[in-house]
């Protein structure tokens, strides 16, 4: 039996000026279950809260309604008041008389009538309230960072520096991602490798970071604070404990194949490090090409290895570990322009390359030793055409979004080209020049001053004309067709989510957006969180970004992780879904709508009405995952799954109370 107390707040004159609080309090006395009702000047004030506590004792109240401001302001305050008054904090409902009544109305009589109605709703609801208790779940003070590009490394370092253990996973033989492949970074033109490789080393040497290169996350279970993760480490065929990284094997390996790191423009041995500063600085064997592993012949590397570290019988290995938080930093790939852009030759012209090829070319440690050379004949191009928005902002053929970094790196490329080739001409075909960033537009301006020619328009065709590439396009500013006989064409291809990122997201338990980028929990207010509690986003996996933005976001994600890992246990919100197993028929519809994968079918064993033991499925809610949205409750026809604090009977009572 509920003994309800109702407290009407004047909020000074904020409410009292438009609502006759005494009248409301008086009316409330007549509502079923109300044992005490009164109005007061400031309920949220110290004496106001004391008044509630005293009344609880004095009138032996077991449920409270406070009619004052918006619950978004003081619900928490009054819940604490109840707790201090010896009641369960959830035996409380709040009526919004200020924001949603007194402030928006002027007719005192009507406003008062409405106020009475609103209080009646709260009383009707609280009459059905039940005591709720929040449980706690432990937090494993260890973070998992997936992807060791600049974003992943930054997040890992920030978390590790805060004193938490971090496991950093990357599927490549080396960490670092794409940044070390780049030559210089805009707008400061400092050497990309010079600022990224030290970070790689720092990561490798950090006492709190466990590095797992050449590894992939293959399974994720559990929930915030308690993610059980299975990680596969691919077969390296080299014992990295014994290996000193001397590199002798690489020099002696007889077979050379195109080097992925140089996008096939250079060669590497079959036992290799992707590049000299790779971290870990120890080789792996490429099983597809290694003579020993493919044909059983050779075995040179094993013979020359001074420490006997080569293991042709190596196999992939698995570890499982538990993490409190996960940071996704899976990065991007470049759009496969060859598949759709026939007007640019479907990739059949060797001298039509992507921006990343260009980066490797101008990079002193790249395949051409920093010389810009035509892939076809190795000659130095005199005229280079840069085409922006290849795959980006092209809803007809490819992606409708803007890849954000291309305007700047194209400006950088044009600058680098004219810089290295004084007598050269750089033409840039663009749709817009987007340079929102500190010192970005100045950089673009300087590229123009360097002599790069910007043509506003799309390129309609590229074709080989002897040794030249004829680029036909439009200069939409003068409304004329233009034709450039180029030696080389550089395409600023769109960023797309890295291969396999969708599968990974599904394994972790959330869905990417339409374009495959990882969807943030809220586009404005929760930009580094995912819908799955405890999983955060860093870098381009969330959407195209340049390096500064990626690093900044990584820091933000790290702070969220540290905030989480600073607690040893989490208090769960008790206002979550709960199943009434006697009513649940196990149809599982609720499972399919839950945004948090919080509901699972679980089998229970009981006796049926004939007394036979039977085993059947019922929905069971994981309180660690459930966020209390209630989407499941509506799919449940008999209301077997219900939302604590917003139960069906509570809401129905509120509705009914308005007209009874």
């Amino acid at each position, binding site marked *: 039996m509920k003994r309800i107390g109702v407290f009407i707040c004047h909020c000074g004159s904020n409410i009292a000026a438009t609502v006759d609080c005494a009248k409301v309090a008086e009316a409330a006395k007549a509502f079923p279950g109300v044992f005490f009702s009164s109005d007061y000047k400031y309920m949220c004030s110290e004496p106001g809260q004391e008044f509630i506590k005293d009344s609880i004792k004095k009138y032996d109240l077991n449920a409270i309604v406070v009619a004052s401001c918006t619950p978004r302001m003081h619900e928490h305050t009054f819940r604490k008041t109840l707790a201090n008054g010896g009641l369960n904090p959830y035996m409380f409902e709040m009526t919004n008389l200020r924001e949603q009544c007194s402030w928006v109305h002027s007719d005192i009589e009507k406003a008062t009538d409405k106020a009475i109605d609103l209080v009646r709703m709260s009383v009707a609801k609280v009459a059905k309230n039940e005591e709720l208790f929040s449980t706690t779940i432990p937090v494993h003070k260890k973070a998992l960072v997936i992807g060791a590009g600049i974003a992943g490394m930054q997040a890992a370092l920030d978390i590790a520096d805060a004193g938490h253990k971090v496991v950093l996973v990357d599927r490549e033989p080396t960490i670092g991602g794409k940044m070390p492949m780049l030559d210089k970074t805009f707008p400061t033109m400092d050497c990309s490798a010079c600022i990224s490789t030290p970070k790689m080393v720092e990561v490798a040497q950090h006492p709190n970071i466990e590095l797992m290169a050449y590894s992939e996350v293959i399974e994720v279970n559990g929930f915030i604070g308690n993610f059980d993760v299975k990680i596969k480490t691919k077969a390296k065929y080299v014992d990295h404990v014994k290996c000193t990284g001397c590199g002798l094997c690489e020099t002696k390996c007889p077979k050379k194949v195109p080097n992925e790191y140089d996008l096939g423009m250079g060669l590497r041995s079959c036992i290799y490090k992707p590049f000299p500063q790779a971290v870990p600085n120890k080789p792996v064997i490429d099983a597809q090409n290694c003579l020993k592993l493919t044909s059983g012949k050779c075995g040179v590397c094993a013979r020359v290895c001074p420490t006997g570290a080569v293991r042709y019988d190596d196999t992939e290995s698995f570890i499982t570990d538990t993490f409190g938080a996960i940071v996704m930093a899976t990065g991007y790939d470049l759009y496969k322009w060859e598949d759709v852009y026939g007007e640019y030759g479907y990739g059949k012209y060797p001298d039509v390359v992507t921006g990343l090829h260009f980066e490797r070319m101008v990079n002193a440690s790249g395949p051409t030793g920093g010389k810009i050379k035509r892939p076809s004949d190795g000659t130095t191009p005199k005229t280079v055409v840069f085409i922006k928005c290849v795959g980006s902002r092209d809803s007809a053929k490819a992606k409708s979004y803007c890849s954000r970094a291309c305007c700047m790196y194209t400006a950088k490329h044009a600058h680098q080209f004219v810089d290295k080739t004084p007598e050269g001409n750089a033409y840039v075909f663009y749709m817009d020049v987007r340079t929102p960033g500190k010192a970005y537009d100045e950089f673009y301006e300087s590229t123009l001053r360097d002599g790069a020619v910007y043509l506003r328009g799309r390129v309609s065709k590229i074709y080989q004309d002897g040794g030249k590439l004829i680029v036909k396009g439009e200069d939409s500013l003068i409304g004329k067709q233009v034709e450039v006989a180029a030696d080389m064409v550089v395409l600023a291809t769109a960023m797309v989510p890295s291969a396999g990122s969708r599968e990974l997201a599904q394994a972790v338990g959330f869905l990417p957006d339409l374009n495959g980028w990882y969807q943030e929990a809220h586009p404005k207010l929760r930009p580094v969180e995912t819908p799955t509690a405890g999983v955060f986003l860093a870098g381009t996996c969330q959407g195209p970004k340049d390096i500064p933005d990626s690093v900044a976001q990584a820091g933000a994600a790290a702070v969220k992780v540290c905030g989480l890992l600073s607690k040893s246990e989490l208090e769960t919100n008790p206002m979550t879904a709960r199943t009434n197993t006697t009513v649940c028929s196990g149809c599982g519809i609720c499972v399919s709508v839950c945004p948090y994968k919080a509901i699972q079918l679980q089998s229970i064993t009981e006796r049926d009405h004939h007394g036979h033991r039977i085993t059947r499925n019922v929905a069971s809610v994981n309180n660690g995952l459930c966020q209390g949205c209630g989407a499941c409750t509506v799919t449940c026809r008999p209301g077997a799954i219900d939302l604590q604090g917003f139960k069906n009977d509570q809401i129905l009572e509120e509705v009914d109370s308005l*007209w009874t």
Partner: protein
Amino acid sequence: MDVIEEQKWEPKILAFCCNWCSYSGADLAGLNRMKYPENIRILRVPCSARVNPQYILRAFQKGADGVLVAGCHPGDCHYSTGNYYTRRRFLIMKRLLEYSGIDPRRFQARWVSGAEAEKFRTTVTKLCEDIKAIGPNRKLRGLK
């Protein structure tokens, strides 16, 4: 209802508002001291996806003259996907109500963000005007 009642009749409209967008939109309207008719009674739910279409039937049965369901804009849902389900459910329910003879103007679903105080005001004001125009709801009313 006799004539006298008819004259002093004021519609009573129930508005289900999701806690994160529409309810705070309504709060913002209050902070800005925007004025709208007193006929609205807001019922707070965590997410528009918590609103069971059966509640709408129940409200009309008990005597509601109009019902509004308001939630975050698609894509902005605090629970990321809740309002996509809301959208499907009420696209269907709206049509079912109409089919069973309820004037379509009596039920509305709207996306109102936490910043759209003005939209909240205009939405509920319009709803009130419409319903005042079509008069009290006598359909689905339980025989009391």
